[in-house]
């Protein structure tokens, strides 16, 4: 008999799922802006991308801190 209906574990994971919404939207906005900018001015791609990577790293840091806390806090 499989323990399929038995749900155990930590609610932290649900919290982490909620916490990824913000960074998800943020990363999407960063790269949407890059796509828009590149479409308008293709030669600016290099300059846009270098700023975008830093912005992406800063925004995604929230999701990463989230997963660390989801495992660290019991």
């Amino acid at each position, binding site marked *: 008999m499989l323990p399929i209906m038995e749900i155990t574990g930590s609610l932290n994971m649900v919290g982490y799922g909620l916490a990824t919404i913000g960074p998800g939207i943020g990363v999407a906005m960063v790269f949407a802006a890059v796509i828009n900018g590149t479409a308008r001015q293709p030669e600016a791609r290099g300059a846009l991308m270098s700023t975008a*990577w*830093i912005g992406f*790293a800063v925004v995604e*840091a929230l999701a*990463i801190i989230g*997963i*660390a806390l989801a495992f660290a806090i019991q």
Partner: protein
Amino acid sequence: MGRLGLIIPMEGGGEGDAHHWPPGVHSFDPKPLFPDAGMDWLNTYLLQAVIGALIVILLWLWFAKDQKIVPGFKQWIGEQLYNLIRNGIGRDALGPDYHKYTPYLVALFSFILVNNLFGQFFLSMFPTFSRVGYAYGLALLSFILYNAAGIAKHGLGSYLKLMTMPKGVPPLLYIIIIPLEILSNFIVRPITLALRLFANLFAGHLVVIVFVVGGSMLLESASVLYKVAGGASLLMAFPIFGLELFIGALQAYIFTVLTAQYVASSIADDH
């Protein structure tokens, strides 16, 4: 797990008994190579990292052997890979002095890529960087590199000034800006660099374990409905593996790009 365990390779430790379900952090426990010798540090992950390093070194030596003016197929592949990193990552981010950092970037990218592909390779089945310690090690290397590059270019004092006091900020705001910049540039950067790589591979591989182990447990159950669901779950594992291949390559690229960007921001003349 019975006879099914012979047919379907088990993730998360061969026997796959009930205590392996649900999969979690314990699924990634390292297995010592010689359990009786008392050398617990000599485990599968260390072996993978060493083999990965050997593969990277030998592969690039092989690519670089007897180069010709008109390249053959082998040399062409090697040059394409090298150019992808040198031009696509190094030159775009670092500007004119990208030559100094190209060897590190190439080595970093290929080492992470090979180790991520170990997650889909049938003998290892675990990405090396799903253990957080290895990711911390790589991030520490990059942390040392970008700080050393900045100190070598500007000297210690003006490097710290560059990293903590952005131009154009009114002096009254320094009391807020300096702690924030120290936190962001010296603490959050290396930690997120490591945890991004680790979390992507760890979570991705956990999904694979859920699909494969869960699917095979469902196949073993009595109800026909569960068996159908188990088959569907095992089939779904294949697209997930494809996604994991893509994510492994993408994370290797992102780690390298961010290292290049951090070096660029610490050797920049103006923040």
